[in-house]
């Protein structure tokens, strides 16, 4: 398999810490690759750099050194709307205030396919309907986004990203607002998109078990450094996780044979 996304020795540092006491965060020579067609998970503790990594990939942030490639091309050289046709992002939070309806939100995902158009075309409308159907948000189409529950909002945001018809779908904490049932449905939907449309999926998550269950490979990130990349069984190693997260964990196996990680509640923290 060829790499769809490649970070090559990427250097990046925020100009100054947002809080005076916070440690300065930086990537130094960050290198990894996401293969075309895989589900790739980025895990790690808070402030490991997970969201910064997504921002670098989508050019919200610019690296100080090194290169980020999409399909062999430096993303810095790709027009922003062209990049948006390849890479769609589902953010952690829905925007607020947001006065538009679900349908209007999803149609916004069509912008990169015709940035010069005043109104969307019939093909745009069809793509938006397809994205809403795939996420079960079609019945919500005429409702204002702000009236929806957290889970419905998240699915509407996912529909907007699907309307972009991207090759790479990037999700930042995709299930943080979802109850168990929608977590399961979202996981199933992501699997289906991956299998049936060959969509490459890059997800960032705190939920180690979701990542283990869903992802082909995981990247464990700590303080801006790659600790380990590999299949979930290799990365979710008890000693490794305890070192990175600084707490006792129990690694077990789920019925599907994937690893599961739990806090070792009974023992004292180190």
């Amino acid at each position, binding site marked *: 398999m060829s790499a769809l996304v490649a970070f090559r020795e990427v250097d990046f540092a925020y100009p100054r810490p*947002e809080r005076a006491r916070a440690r300065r965060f930086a990537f130094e020579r960050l290198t990894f690759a996401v293969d075309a067609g895989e589900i790739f998970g980025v895990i790690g503790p808070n402030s490991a750099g997970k969201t910064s990594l997504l*921002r670098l990939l*989508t*050019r*919200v942030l610019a690296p100080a050194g090194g290169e980020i490639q999409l399909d062999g091309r430096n993303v810095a050289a790709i*027009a*922003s*709307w*062209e*990049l*948006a*046709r390849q*890479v*769609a*992002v589902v*953010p952690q939070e829905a*925007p607020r*205030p*947001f*006065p*538009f309806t679900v349908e*209007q*939100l999803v149609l*916004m*995902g069509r*912008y*990169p396919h015709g*940035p010069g*158009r*005043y*109104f969307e075309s019939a093909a745009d409308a069809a793509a938006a309907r397809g994205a809403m159907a795939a996420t079960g948000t079609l019945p919500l189409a005429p409702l204002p986004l702000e009236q929806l529950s957290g889970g419905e909002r998240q699915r509407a945001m996912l529909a907007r990203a699907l309307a*972009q018809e991207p090759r790479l779908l990037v999700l930042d904490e995709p299930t943080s607002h979802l109850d168990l049932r929608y977590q399961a449905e979202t996981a199933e939907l992501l699997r289906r998109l991956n299998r049936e449309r060959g969509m490459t999926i890059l997800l960032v998550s705190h939920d180690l078990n979701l990542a283990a269950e869903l992802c082909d490979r995981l990247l464990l990130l700590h303080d801006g450094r790659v600790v380990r990349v590999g299949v979930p069984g290799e990365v979710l190693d008890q000693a490794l996780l305890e070192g990175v997260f600084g707490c006792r964990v129990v690694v077990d196996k789920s019925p599907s044979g994937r690893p599961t990680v739990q806090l070792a509640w009974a023992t004292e923290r180190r």
Partner: protein
Amino acid sequence: MTDRRRLVVSLVVLAALLVAIACVALFVGGAGLSPRAVVRALTGSADAGSVESIITLGLRLPRVVVAALAGGALAVAGVAFQGLTRNPLAEPSVLGVTSGAAFGVVLAQIAGLGASVTDALAVAACAFGGALLAAVTVYAIARSPGGLVIQTLLLAGVIVGIFFSSAITVVISIVDVDRLGGVVHWLLGNLSPVPAGSLAVFAVLAAAGFGLVLASARELNLLALGEEAARQLGVDAERLKRRVFLAAALLTGTVVAFTGPIGFVGLVVPHVLRGVVGQDNRLLVPTAMLAGGAFLLAADTVARNVVAPAELSVGVISAFCGAPVFVWVLRSRARAAA
């Protein structure tokens, strides 16, 4: 109904409304012309020097055009500021931009600029500069790492507005009374007939501002997603903000230069329109141009006639309409946030 259809229907209805109000404005007034006399003047069958021709073609018609242009420009500026700040309360006068523009005009007037076409351009440039200065100041005060905080934005607008109003007072106090001319009257917001050449300058500048906002309407919608998400969809957010900011300041400055500081049109008109055509800026921007014109024309017609033969300033009427709408929007947002 598709968006395109809804836009066409709305534009047709609003154009009809604008024409109807314009007719009323042409036929009523302190001079007490008979409808027949007005028709004679409009069709050109009256003498060029006759009373009905002078009043209808020389006074009322230019005033109708100025009102329609000014109202449309202010309403579009309101939609633009609301899209930029993601807040329906943002509006040129609330943000202090109108006061900034007024300061620029006062400076231009005491410098002795008159009504010729080049002078009109210079006055408009001063107003644009003042508007831009005020807008940038408010934006800089209200900006924080998490985006624009709405309370801060509104307070910053109030403060900047007070500052420029005080600056105007200072200028008026220290300058010779005879050099002030009509400044005090003008400061109340006034639609007096503008000479044809200056009117053309007004129309061109307003059209430029309108065109810039219209061309940015779809991107303004995407800005509601947040700047980061908009950029991830391919919008050049910084360029978009600069462009819309400049356009809104240009629209505000131009109107202030030719009519004085008229407030609240950019608040009232978009608020009513949102209830009719929805939140889509692609529908709001073009309909605001017509609806704003209709609103200010109606307000001016009332101002001209309600205390005839004296005249109220149109700014008073628009503020009387605007203040309750401001309170209404503020309260309903407070309820929604609770």
